[in-house]
């Protein structure tokens, strides 16, 4: 109702129920059966959907991360390294490319990726990764035994 006086204002309750339900039913427009048109059934599905969407914002990032890591690993295996070695060595070399860029390079710029992989392989030997020959890291006490 239109509020034109203080008494009406005192008597007024919440927002119109129709518009609240419309807000929910708008989100359930692509659902199956009564879930798209009947409010009391749609509210259950829409609440669950909204909960999933908040929780899965984090999962989405993890999903893409694992996909990118797998793709980079595939290219690394072709070139004779592994993803773990390459990523760790790039960190040591100071190359701050992330997984998204690396997987794009692996797909669309294979020669650039190959250059990076060979660079990391050379750096690995220098740093002594996966071998006992390299320089001993700082803070390790060997007492001449190693």
């Amino acid at each position, binding site marked *: 109702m239109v509020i034109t006086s203080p008494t009406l204002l005192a008597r007024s309750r919440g927002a119109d129920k129709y518009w609240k339900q419309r807000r929910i039913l708008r989100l359930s427009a692509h659902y199956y059966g009564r879930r798209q048109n009947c409010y009391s059934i749609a509210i259950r599905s829409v609440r669950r959907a909204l909960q999933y969407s908040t929780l899965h914002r984090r999962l989405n990032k993890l999903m893409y991360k694992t*996909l990118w890591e*797998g*793709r980079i690993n*595939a290219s690394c295996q072709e070139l004779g390294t592994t993803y773990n070695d390459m990523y760790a060595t790039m960190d040591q070399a100071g190359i701050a490319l992330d997984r998204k860029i690396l997987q794009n390079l692996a*797909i669309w710029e294979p020669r650039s990726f190959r250059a990076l992989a060979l660079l990391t392989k050379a750096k690995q030997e220098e740093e002594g990764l996966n071998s006992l020959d390299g320089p001993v890291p700082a803070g390790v006490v060997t007492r001449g035994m190693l």
Partner: protein
Amino acid sequence: MWYLFDAKWQNPFHSADKIKDILTGTHKPIYHDLNDCGDHVVVINSSEIALPGVEWEKRVYFHHTGYAKGASWTLAWQLHHKDPTMILRKTVYSKLSKNLLRRGRMEKLHIFPDDKIPDSILENVSAQLRQMRPIPKRLDHYTREEVEKFPKLC
């Protein structure tokens, strides 16, 4: 792409790890589950696979016909006698991810018990997968000169 894999004296469980990666397409940088980017693998000499340890006697394959009293437990050597391709097929099937894409990926796997491959498949094969276990040379396959040249202690 069609890959050839010689399963002679290879461990089927280790080989299946490599084969399943090729079938799913995980060896490619364009990999995605829904991309259907797997490659074909043609396995030859599957009758000459080598199971580790006591697996031939101890490994058991279970099958149920669906009817009453239809459960059967077959030992690996018995299954191998019946069908030399089954052990490798079952191993790859169990290693693939358990979703609806599995059956399609198994269709890309072609196993043959010996060297004979049909021409229609052989003309597609373009590369070979490296064997995981190196095959040692038999003593009677060494030539007389190699045996004489080999250094002796006394």
